[in-house]
């Protein structure tokens, strides 16, 4: 019988932090691996498009310092997935830079493996022409223009590139964009543990203590993989894992709780059993892995659509509130008319909090009846920052002084919380790729490089 394989998941997101006490409790259980996921598409397209991290550098450095010191001391690998958040080259470089700084600060020496997840546009165009790229419903079909316009295009790696990196016996692995469970599952799969159980355990561990109750993204979680099952246990005495909390996590951010699709196949959880092992731990069994042919990986890309400027204001006047739609429509017309000779292409929007500012078209009660104040966010997106600034500024000043029918408050229509009232937010991005690409060799697109630090 194989020795159980033990994994310490540091936090739901590298940089979200964790109590040192929880981490040390995990280390005292002699894990074979320390891992943390660092990425998500949840924060939207900006971070991938702009090559920026959505987590804070100081916070990431703090988490990594604790993880690297402990891993080196225990002589076990530390694996980070989707480094820098979106896992493209600038993100991986950003995270690598932090790791090198930690090594210098603490006089640490180790072998570092870097796995890149970027795709050249020329290759993607060839793959598209060869029929190897398909839309992931309900995303639109991919066109060459979307590839050309993208600033960064990555794919989520499976376990194979990480196994290839592990073959070089590194101490620390920083992976570019990775399917979240891959970083937890790669080493046990390499060692011959069951692929389905390893991936399912990884799927739960990637969110660390979110699968406990009370849940937290900023606390550690411990997983133990056996030949026929796995066990999850919290490391903080205030938390427990219950069958409900662990099963509930299987639902999280997934469209179908029974079928979890990933690189090269899917997990079928229809026959899973969740059993309360002790008061605080849960044992899971019955997960199945269904490989797909061909092996597909998920592409993600983002492209710039211009520059954005926003202005935040409030309205408390009931006459203004009751006529808000007519007023903003009239202001939009005034803006268009004023700059009609410039032939600018811009997007001007008044997002009205108190009406449908949160739910937009999904809002069942898009009415201002009974509402005593509104929050108004004026947003202008245009081809240049100067144009966006101009449209936002003009819309703001026009709305401030617009003489709507029945108005009593002739001194001004808006309450501004800030001076300056307008905020230029810079380049704006949208997702451009969310597609599947068939690959012959799942490790090939994700080259590994080693560095002696």
């Amino acid at each position, binding site marked *: 019988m194989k020795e159980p394989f033990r994994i310490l998941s540091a936090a739901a997101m590298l940089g979200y932090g964790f109590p040192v006490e929880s981490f040390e409790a995990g280390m005292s259980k002699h894990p074979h691996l320390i891992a943390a996921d660092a990425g998500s598409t*949840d924060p*939207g*397209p*900006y971070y991938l498009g702009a090559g920026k991290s959505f987590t804070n550098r100081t916070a990431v450095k703090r988490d990594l310092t604790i993880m690297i010191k402990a891993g080196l001391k225990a002589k076990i690998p530390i694996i980070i997935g989707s480094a820098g958040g979106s896992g493209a080259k600038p993100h991986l470089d950003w995270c690598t830079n932090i790791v090198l700084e930690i090594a210098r600060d603490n006089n640490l020496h180790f072998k570092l493996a870097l796995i890149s997840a970027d795709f050249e546009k020329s290759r993607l165009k060839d793959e598209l022409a060869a029929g190897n790229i398909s839309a992931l419903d309900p995303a639109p079909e991919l066109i060459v223009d979307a590839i050309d316009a993208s600033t960064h295009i990555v794919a989520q790696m499976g376990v194979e590139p990480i196994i290839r990196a592990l073959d070089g016996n590194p101490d620390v692995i920083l992976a570019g964009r990775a399917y979240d469970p891959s970083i937890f599952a790669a080493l046990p799969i390499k060692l011959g543990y069951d692929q389905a159980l390893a991936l399912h355990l990884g799927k739960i561990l990637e969110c660390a203590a979110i699968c406990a109750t009370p849940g937290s993204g900023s606390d550690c979680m411990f997983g133990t993989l056996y030949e026929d099952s796995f066990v999850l246990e919290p490391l903080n005495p205030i938390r427990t894992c219950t069958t409900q909390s662990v099963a509930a996590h299987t639902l999280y951010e997934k*469209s179908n709780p029974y079928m979890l699709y990933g690189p090269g196949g899917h997990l079928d959880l229809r026959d899973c059993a969740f059993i309360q092992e002790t008061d605080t731990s849960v044992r899971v069994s019955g997960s199945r892995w269904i490989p797909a042919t061909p092996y597909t990986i998920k592409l993600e890309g983002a492209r710039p659509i211009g520059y954005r400027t926003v202005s935040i204001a409030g309205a408390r006047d009931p006459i203004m509130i009751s006529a808000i739609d007519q007023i903003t429509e009239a202001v939009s017309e005034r803006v268009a008319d004023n700059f009609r000779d410039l032939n600018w292409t811009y997007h001007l929007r008044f997002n009205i909090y108190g009406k*449908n*500012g949160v739910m937009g078209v999904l809002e*069942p009660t898009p009415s201002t009846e009974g509402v005593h104040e509104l929050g108004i966010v004026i947003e202008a997106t245009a081809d240049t920052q100067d144009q966006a600034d101009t449209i936002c500024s003009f819309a703001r000043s026009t709305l401030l002084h617009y003489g709507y029918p029945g108005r009593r408050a002739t001194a001004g229509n808006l309450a501004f919380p800030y001076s300056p009232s307008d905020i230029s937010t810079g380049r704006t991005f*949208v997702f451009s790729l969310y597609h599947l690409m068939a690959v012959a060799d799942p490790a090939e697109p994700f080259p590994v490089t080693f560095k002696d630090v």
Partner: protein
Amino acid sequence: MRIKLIDITDVIRSKNAGPYELTFDIMFKSLDWFEKVVAADAINTDTVCRLFQLQPDDVLNIIPFKPAKAIKITIKRPLCSGDLGETDVYGAQQHAPLLSLELNLSV
């Protein structure tokens, strides 16, 4: 009998499932309530369309998940996350209409 969904559940939440889909999790207080609601088909495509102003095609699936005493609803996002016109990048505040949903259950 009419019963408020909020009175028989512990969790009602929404979140993106990738940038093109929005998913809702409804977790019941007991297996009994879960089974009653599922047996009555009390949360169906019509219910979801009515709550969120959707067409039936926009509702991708409604799946009971017994291990979590939960029903999961997944719909098409009105916009790809972060597109112009976005109001909720993470999709975490779209669940509110479910909180006031009343169900008709024969007990």
